[in-house]
């Protein structure tokens, strides 16, 4: 019989009796989210190569003001401060950023990965003080449902982009014909994955039916609650797949626009 004296309480950052690779999950999340934040920030600041033919990068959609044919209200507005850098993405990116930032899944993930609050389950934390989402600033996370409303609108807009990506202009005749390119499929997949993520939102689940105790008397709501609940069970999966794919969609449009990749037409 041997003896080893070890403190019972966890009282230091990273202290734990866990023998598994508990650091792997938060580290993966840290690098995954950091890579996306860095790329999307860089892409948003570019202000060019965000459209190619009928394709518009989802980072720039809807293009409220801008120089591309996709712009809804014309070029850069005169009221934009001259000392501020300009990109059409600045006007709209706050919506998907806000939606993901306040998302219940991402909250749990980045509290662990970026704040070590906690680093992982049953692992010691670096700080003793904890206020959680009980007070400012994290109490603002409760705004999530408002971002969800806006994100639902973005799904409609991005679906319209997919429709537009089915109409190709002949450079010689100027005639517009129905067709499909790899880019169309890329943008369509983006909408499917974003829909899987947005329509599985916890706030949406609550609003369509979760807030009622008697769903049996509301068959439409019961069906909606059940459908959202089904997607909600895979919320983490859709959160990551849609994050990766929305980034890839921008890369695809950018590469085609820069002439590095060729957009193959299927028909």
């Amino acid at each position: 019989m041997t003896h080893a004296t070890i403190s019972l309480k966890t009282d230091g950052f990273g202290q734990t009796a866990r023998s598994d690779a508990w650091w792997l999950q938060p580290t993966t999340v840290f690098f995954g989210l950091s890579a996306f934040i860095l790329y999307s920030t860089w892409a948003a600041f570019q202000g060019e190569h965000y459209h190619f033919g009928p394709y518009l990068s989802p980072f720039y959609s809807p293009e409220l003001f801008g120089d591309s044919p996709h712009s809804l209200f014309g070029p850069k507005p005169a009221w934009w401060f001259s000392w501020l850098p300009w990109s059409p993405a600045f006007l709209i990116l706050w919506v998907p950023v806000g939606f993901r930032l306040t998302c219940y899944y991402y909250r749990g993930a980045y509290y662990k990965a970026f704040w070590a609050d906690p680093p992982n389950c049953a692992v010691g934390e670096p700080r003793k003080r904890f206020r959680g989402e009980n007070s400012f600033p994290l109490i603002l996370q409760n705004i999530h449902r408002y971002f969800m409303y806006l994100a639902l609108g973005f799904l409609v807009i991005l679906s319209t982009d997919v429709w537009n990506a089915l109409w190709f202009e002949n450079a010689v005749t100027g005639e517009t014909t129905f067709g499909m390119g790899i880019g169309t499929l890329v943008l369509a997949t983006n909408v499917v994955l974003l829909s899987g993520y947005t329509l599985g939102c916890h706030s949406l689940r609550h609003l369509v039916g979760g807030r009622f105790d008697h769903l049996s008397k509301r068959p439409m709501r019961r069906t909606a609650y059940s459908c959202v609940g089904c997607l909600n069970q895979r919320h983490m999966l859709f959160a990551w797949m849609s994050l990766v794919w929305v980034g890839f969609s921008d890369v695809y449009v950018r590469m085609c626009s820069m002439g590095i990749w060729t957009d193959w037409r299927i028909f």
Partner: protein
Amino acid sequence: MAKATFRIWRGDADGGELRDYTTEVSEGMVVLDAVLQIQADEANDLAVRWNCKAGKCGSCSAEVNGVPKLMCMTRLNELPLEKPVTLHPMKAFPLVKDLVTDVSWNFEIKKRIKPFKPRPPDAEDGTWRMAQSDVDRVMEFRKCVECFLCQDVCHVLREHQLFDGFIGPRFLVHVAALEMHPLDTENRLEALRTDQGIGYCNITKCCTNVCPENITITDNAIIPLKERVVDEAYDPLRRFFRKMTGGR
């Protein structure tokens, strides 16, 4: 027969140490079997709380290799037996002796939650009528065996010791079972927001991960309650709409 080493916390509230015990293990054994064998053969004074050995009484909660688990539901073939298996008592609660902790705080918390308050009976014989689909949602919460592993792993209690301001995942599940019950008429949302501190939960899902009954604590209980609290306290549009329609 194969042997395995168990590194078990021995001590009380004043202090203690980890001691190694080597015992024979065989196919089908769970951690509690090994602990009881050690108790019988080598350490007659080892304190361990257990009862059903079937994962239904919630008594044998401990931390196996640092992860809160029921010892009776942790099979040895799931553990790397080439290294010593470390056994600690639940660290969130006051230690009584060895693997036994004082979980009485939980019972005091439960008393502070407004009890079930059904609407008047639907029939003259004093009974109610409910749709099965309405009750299904809360049935999941009733699987809880009160092992308090979720309370133990919750960093708000374990690390930050906020026992005065936060009731913990076990009782958020309990409140959810009451709040979502189709017959219940009580409103517990203001208490949830204030005294019971639901805002302290930062959705790390550790409670869900350790639940031996696989209750989806975070997604099905805590987040829906958080959303109900948002309805009540943080959503101005919803409050306006509620005032206009006179609904809850």
